[in-house]
Structure formats: structure tokens, C-alpha cells
């Protein structure tokens, strides 16, 4: 039966927006519509930026991330649904059960398009169900259905069955067993992609929400200049086939592995080394020829970065640098079959591969040092890695401790374990060695989400050749600010970061993309200011939740143990050097020495917009 699009009242929303968010309350699924003013939309754009505003507005101060009243938001952007390549993205935003701070995890899939076309710029879920359930948002209508048969299934299987039951027009975001058991780094999955970092799957699990299913009402919000959007989309599409994206297209992000190994930035055995003797066995340059079987695109993407490799016994695994680094060198595992199997297992269980690998690698070192009693858990032991993943998702045995993440687990053991826990603010480090990438060291230390490479791309400055990557200083701080601002802009527009190399002049080019969609006369300067506002909006939320400067740091290991490069040079990062970079970062961001916005910064960036909206 053909569905008739329901009329959507957008009021006076700008192009690309519906001008409202849907706020659904569990367990009954009753919903209200939260108007989003043009001032809010222009100040936050969408995605991570709008998500930060929603959390300021809707999350009760001091809320437990796993409490029913903690909101969980799926946030879209003005570009979603346009023909602009890589724009089918959304941000899942909540207070993180891993960090206790604001967390936004981005992913690309048809869920973004279907979710937005329900007639909302964001879907927010509050409350909790008494039994495992599914929230169904069908156009403007919401309902809650029981999900007993789906509970315990991998997210992909739950998604498949749910679409079979509801109809193919529905798109589904679901959690796996790890989310159901409140593993603090559980993911939210859809179309085989994952909103991976910060444990948002546990937030869904705490609400006993197996999945959110969405179906669009069939009406897109008008664009201010449809022909202009088409022209921009054609141009961007052409450029997306060029050299800037060759790495992603030809080998995927796993191409980083051997390069990073060559320059001593490949974290190995819980960051005890920065190069891995067996790196070639896991390298894209080798594996691609031997095992590459398919390449996938996200929805509305012309890059196609996702490379699928064949594993032992005919299995298939999605391969990216971060999952291979975390489940390979970081755990001392060199068998590609084992690493691919561990990666696939994380996807089935719904575990963030970086936090899972980081926490297990930390536990391996603790076991070696006799800090925990787990003689079976040793670096390089692939069976132990797979066993640990299963125990984590089941919260059984040692897994119950490890499911809390390395920061909480280390706190139960003592200072020696805490010194080597590879985390900032509770979020495990990605595959970038901070001692040999010292702009990145700063980015990892100060970012609001914790140690993260998608919110701070400061490694770009380290690898540009324009700074000495082993001698962090004020120039590194300036570079960290710029890359963080760029990430905030891309995460709010939203565009895939793999596209960033095609923009020779990103700020004016991004502003130019926004103009025909929204009709705003936003220029480069306003967009930069908006990005700075979004970065500080996240910091303001964290300040509200009790963050202090003491959390802008790196684990003691990085500040006391040098790393020797193949050239013989020592890479050393001292507390004084990192502290100096943090001071320079605060000064560059208009923060006081405690990391709080100065009054002039608050005024310039209109940060009161967030403070005003802090209470529901």
C-alpha cells in the first residue's frame, strides 16, 4: 500500500530544517515536540552542536547516565537528505556512562535520512521501559513495542528481524548484548555501522531499549536554493573521487597501520612500545590483496572507505585501522585471522573496539605485572583476547571488571594500575602514540569527549612536517585548536571527515555548502565562531557536571616513560611540556587557567545560549 505523505508543519524553519525535535518518553512512548528556534539552529547547526544544546536543555544536572531520566538524542543536520556526498550522518548524544561527561558518537547510515524524514531535526528518548522494548517512530507517531525475542541478539540480527516485522521502510538503530548488560563502552549499531565511542549502547540498555525504529513521513524540508545544492553536490561528488580520498578508497583506514609503524606511532602492548614487529602481517598493503573481498559505501557516500576482508572459515569482517590497531598490536596479537575474528566479535556483541582493546591490553599488562590474577591473559594470546571479549559482554568472571572500562577498573586496583590505564576522562586512547605526536597529545588531553581522534585531529599538524612532532609547544596548541574547531564544524554540518582533504579552503567552502541549503548568509567568519562555540558548549556541559582542569591530562605513563624511535631519538613528553601546551590551549580558546570561559569569551560566542537552556 502506498503511503501518503503527511503534511508537516515546519513553521518558519530555515531550509534543511523542520525546526523541532521529537522528545519521546518511555515506557509509553508519549511524545512532545520541542521547538528549535532559528537562533538555536544557526548557533549550533546540527549533529554534535545541536546535540550539545539539547543536552544542556534536557539533561537534568548531575544525572546518572544510566538513570531513566538521562536523555539520549539522535541528532540530524541540515545536510541530511540532500544529495551532498557523505551527508547521511547523525550524532547519538548523551551523557557518557564511561566518562560521566558529554558524549557524541557519529555514524553514517540510512537511519539518518529516515529519522530526519519523520519530520524532526532530532529524536530524543527519555525514561525507561519495564521490559525489553523497541521505540517505533513512524512519521509523527510514536509507540513502544515489546522486544523479548530480540533481547540477547546481535544488533545486526535484531535490526534484520525488526525490519522484517515492521517493513523495509523502517530503519533501525539497535544494541547488542553488551549494551543490554550495560557494558560502559557498548555501541549503537545500524546498517552495519556503529556509533561507537563512549558507551551510548549502555544508555539504551539502561532504558531496556533494544532498538529505535524510524520511518520517514516522506516529506523533506525545502531547501533555500535547490539548484545551488545540486550544483554543489555535483562538484563535491567529483572532488570526492580525487587524490584526497585515494587512501580511503583504495585501502581504507587500515593503510595507517604500516605507516604509523614506520614512524613509531603505532601503540603496541598497551603503549609500552610505538612499533610492532609483526605489523606487516596486519598491514592493508599485504592483506588487501590476500583477503579483500568487498568494498562498501555508507548511505549517500561516494568514497567507499569500508573494506571487507575474508577471515578464517569463510567469515567476513569490516576492517578499519582503529579496530585492527586495538585488537592487534595493542594486545600484541599478530595473527590477522584472530584480529579479524575479534573485530567481528566486537560488532556482534556491540562493543567499541578501541575501548575493548584498550581495556584488555591494560588488563594484559596488569596480569603480567601480577596486579590482577588472570594467568590466562597474556599479550599475543589470541584465544585470551576472544575469551576476554565474551566475558566482558556477558559481565562474567574478569569481564565484569573490564566491562567498566580501564579507568574504573584501575581505580579498584591501585596507583600502579592507574598509571598505565590508557584513558583520558575514562575514554580509552585511539591508535595515535602521544609521545611521538605531541600536538595530538594535547588534543587527546583536552578534548571534552576524552581521548579521541575524531574530535581532535591534531595528528594532522604532527604529520604535516610544519611542526616538530617530538617537541610540543605553542604552535602545537594553535594547531590543536584549529583541528578541533574543524572537527566541530564537520560533526555539526555533518560531513564525513574522510572528505576533509578535498577542501583546500575548508571554512569558506563549508559555509558555501550551508548557504544554498539553509538560505543563511553565513560566511567563513561566522562558521568559525560557530565551531568555537560548539567546542566550548561541550566544555560548559562538562563543567556543569563537575569537570575540573585535573581531567585535562594524560596518564602518568606518557609523562614519565620515553619512547625510543628507530632513529635513536627519544620521544619524551613531560608534565611541564604538556602543562605548557594546555596553558597555551586555554589562552587560545579564551579560557581562564581553570579551563572556564572568560567573560569576554562567553559574550563573544554567546555561550549564555546554553546556560539559559540548562533546565528543562
Amino acid at each position, binding site marked *: 500500500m502506498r503511503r501518503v505523505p503527511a503534511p508537516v508543519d515546519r513553521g518558519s524553519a530555515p531550509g534543511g530544517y523542520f525546526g523541532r525535535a521529537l522528545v519521546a518518553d518511555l515506557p509509553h512512548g508519549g511524545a512532545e515536540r520541542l521547538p528549535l528556534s532559528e537562533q538555536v539552529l544557526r548557533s549550533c547547526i546540527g549533529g554534535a552542536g545541536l546535540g550539545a544544546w539539547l543536552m544542556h536543555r534536557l539533561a537534568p544536572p548531575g544525572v546518572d547516565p544510566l538513570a531513566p531520566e538521562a536523555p539520549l538524542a539522535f541528532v540530524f543536520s541540515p545536510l541530511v537528505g540532500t544529495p551532498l556526498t557523505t551527508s547521511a550522518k547523525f550524532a547519538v548524544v548523551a551523557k557518557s556512562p564511561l566518562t560521566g561527561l558529554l558524549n557524541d558518537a557519529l555514524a553514517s547510515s540510512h537511519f539518518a535520512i529516515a529519522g530526519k524524514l519523520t519530520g524532526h531535526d532530532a529524536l530524543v528518548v527519555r525514561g525507561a521501559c519495564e521490559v525489553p522494548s523497541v521505540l517505533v517512530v513512524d512519521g509523527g507517531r510514536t509507540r513502544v513495542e515489546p522486544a523479548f525475542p530480540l533481547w540477547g541478539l546481535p544488533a545486526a540480527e535484531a535490526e534484520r528481524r525488526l525490519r522484517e516485522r515492521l517493513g523495509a521502510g523502517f530503519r533501525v538503530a539497535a544494541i547488542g548484548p553488551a549494551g543490554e548488560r550495560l557494558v560502559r563502552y557498548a555501541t549503537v549499531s545500524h546498517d552495519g555501522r556503529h556509533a561507537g565511542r563512549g558507551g551510548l549502547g549502555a544508555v539504551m540498555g539502561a532504558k531496556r531499549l533494544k532498538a529505535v525504529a524510524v520511518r520517514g513521513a516522506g516529506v523533506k524540508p525545502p531547501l533555500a536554493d535547490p539548484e545551488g545544492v545540486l550544483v554543489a553536490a555535483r562538484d563535491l561528488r567529483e572532488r570526492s573521487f580525487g*587524490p*584526497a580520498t*585515494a*587512501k580511503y*578508497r*583504495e*585501502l*581504507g*583506514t*587500515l*593503510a*595507517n597501520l*604500516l*605507516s*604509523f609503524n*614506520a*614512524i*613509531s606511532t603505532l601503540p603496541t602492548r598497551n603503549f609500552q612500545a610505538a612499533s610492532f614487529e609483526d605489523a*606487516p602481517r596486519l598491514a*592493508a*598493503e*599485504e592483506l*588487501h*590483496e590476500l583477503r579483500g573481498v568487498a568494498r562498501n559505501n555508507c548511505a549517500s557516500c561516494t568514497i567507499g572507505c569500508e573494506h571487507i576482508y575474508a577471515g578464517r572459515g569463510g567469515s567476513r569482517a569490516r576492517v*578499519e*585501522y*582503529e579496530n585492527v590497531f586495538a585488537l592487534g598490536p595493542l594486545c600484541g596479537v599478530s595473527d590477522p585471522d584472530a584480529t579479524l575474528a575479534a573485530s567481528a566479535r566486537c560488532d556482534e556483541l556491540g562493543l567499541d573496539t578501541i575501548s575493548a582493546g584498550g581495556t584488555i591490553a591494560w588488563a594484559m599488562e596488569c596480569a603480567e605485572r601480577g596486579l590482577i590474577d588472570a594467568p590466562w591473559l597474556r599479550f599475543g594470546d589470541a584465544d585470551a583476547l576472544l575469551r576476554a571479549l565474551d566475558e566482558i559482554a556477558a559481565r562474567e568472571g574478569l569481564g565484569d571488571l573490564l566491562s567498566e572500562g580501564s579507568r574504573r577498573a584501575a581505580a579498584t586496583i591501585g596507583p600502579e594500575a592507574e598509571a598505565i590505564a590508557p584513558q583520558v576522562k575514562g575514554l580509552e586512547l585511539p591508535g595515535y602514540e602521544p609521545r611521538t605526536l605531541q600536538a595530538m597529545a594535547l588534543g587527546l588531553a583536552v578534548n571534552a569527549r576524552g581521548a579521541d*581522534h575524531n574530535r581532535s*585531529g591534531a*595528528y*594532522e599538524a*604532527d*604529520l*604535516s*612536517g610544519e611542526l*616538530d*612532532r*617530538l*617537541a610540543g609547544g605553542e604552535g602545537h596548541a594553535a594547531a590543536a585548536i584549529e583541528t578541533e574547531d574543524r572537527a566541530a564544524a564537520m560533526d555539526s554540518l555533518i560531513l564525513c*571527515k*574522510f572528505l*576533509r*582533504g578535498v577542501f*583546500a579552503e575548508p571554512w569558506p567552502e563549508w559555509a558555501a555548502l550551508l548557504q544554498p541549503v539553509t538560505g543563511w548568509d553565513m560566511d567563513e567568519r561566522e562558521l568559525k565562531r560557530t565551531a568555537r562555540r560548539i567546542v566550548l558548549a561541550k566544555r560548559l556541559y562538562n563543567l556543569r557536571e563537575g569537570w575540573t582542569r585535573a581531567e585535562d591530562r594524560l596518564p602518568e605513563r606518557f609523562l614519565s616513560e620515553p619512547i625510543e*624511535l*628507530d*632513529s*635513536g*631519538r627519544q620521544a619524551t613528553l613531560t608534565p611541564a611540556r604538556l602543562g605548557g601546551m594546555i596553558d597555551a590551549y586555554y589562552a587560545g580558546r579564551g579560557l581562564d587557567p581553570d579551563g572556564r570561559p572568560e567573560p569576554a569569551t562567553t559574550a563573544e560566542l554567546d555561550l549564555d545560549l546554553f546556560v539559559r537552556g540548562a533546565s528543562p
Partner: protein
Amino acid sequence: MGRPKASLEWHGSTLLQRVVGIVARVVDGPVVVVRAPGQELPELPAEVALATDAREGRGPLEGIHAGLAALGDAASWAYVSSTDVPLLHPAFVRAVLRAAEREDADVALPVAHGFRHPLAAAYRTGLLPEVERLIAEDRMKPAFLFERVRMHELDEDELLRDRDLSRADPDLLSLLNVNDPAEYERARARSAPAVTVRRFGALARNGAGLEPLPVRAATLGEAATSAGVTLDRHVVAALNGDQISRDPDYPLATGDAVAFLAADAGG
């Protein structure tokens, strides 16, 4: 020579550009170029500091004075080099500086091939007042300085006990200078340094390029050409797994391993 040595060409660079680049690879402080009053120099990187001899033609002590004065307290040690050493190797500079620090002398002076080499030596920057006194006394030879300070002479055996140097420059060609047109022509006839190049990621087409390929290249730009890589904004090079550069004029030395990587490290 008939021409300023600083501007003589050697495998795509001037001698001055090459020496400045090689020294900069080793030291962690500023590089100072001392010139005669009014002397024109080839183009140099913006971060290179310039100083000028107080008086022209007064010998090396005048230049050492100007260089030490320009450094001020920016460093404890200065490596002093002449311009005309096309085969200067970073390992030589490193070995001399290491010896200076190790021996706690005021000057670490190589003595090799039958000569002392005051313009391939390390000087404590605190020697500036002593140098000023000598100039005031019109005693303009470095030998007069050596009489007054704590010296450590580095003979060939001691130099080559440095394993990096003995591997990179066993014949101590770092000390080979060019004093006349014939010597310059002989230096030009020498091959560019033997280095290896590798390509990673999408630059390693179907895996080809991952193994180190021996080539001759005096600069990063020449190495890129040999590797079939264009040094644009999408590509960077890592030198010996250490510093990152995309400067085509970056000088290479024998034994260097160059890795070409995608500039975009995201993922």
C-alpha cells in the same frame, strides 16, 4: 675559487643550503649563518638566523665570534661548520657534539686526514668573552683560542668509535672541503648520497614499493622523483622514521631511509 663558495651548486642545492639543512637536522637550537659585510647569500629557510662579520677578511675567529654572539644563551654548544663541505653527514655533527658534551671540554676538535678542523668542531657558547679578548689582541687564529681553553681533540679512531658515524661515513668524507675549482669539480662528480625509499598505503600500488628501494638522491625532492611520488599536499615523507617533511629541498645524506606516506592520517 673565483665564485662565492656558498652559492656553488651540488646535486640541486647550493653548498650553503645543504650545510644549513644538514646541521639543522641534528641540532635542536637555532642555525646561524655568518656572512661577510654586504655578502649576498642564496635563499635560506625563514628560521635561519643571519649574522655579519664585524670586519671582513679577518679569518675564522671573526666568524666564530659573530655566530656565538648571535646564539647568545639559546644553546650551550655550537657546532661550527664551513660552507664548503658537500659530504657533511648528520652523524658527523652528532658525533662531535656528543663528544663535546661527554668530555666536558670547551672545544671538541676533530683531527683527521692529518689536519685539525676548527671549522668542523663544537664550541661551548660560553667561550664568547675569550674570543672577544683574542680579537681585541688581534690574535685571529683559532689556534690561539685552543691554547687558552680546555680542548678535546677527536682523532679518527675516536670519531669512528661512534657507531652511527662509522656506519654512515667511514672515510670521514664529512671533512672533505673544496678549495679550488678542481676540488669542486671532483666533488660534483661524486654521486648523490645513497639512500632508500619506500612507499606506504595507497602510494604502494598493489604492495609494490613497500620494500626499501636503493636510489641516489641529495634532496627529498630527488628521492620523491625516484620513488615515482609527487610531493604535494596529499603526501609527506618520514626521514629515518623520525622527522616528517614535505620540503623538496630537505637535504639527504648517505644511509637515509625515506618513507613516503599519505598526508591524511585519519581513521
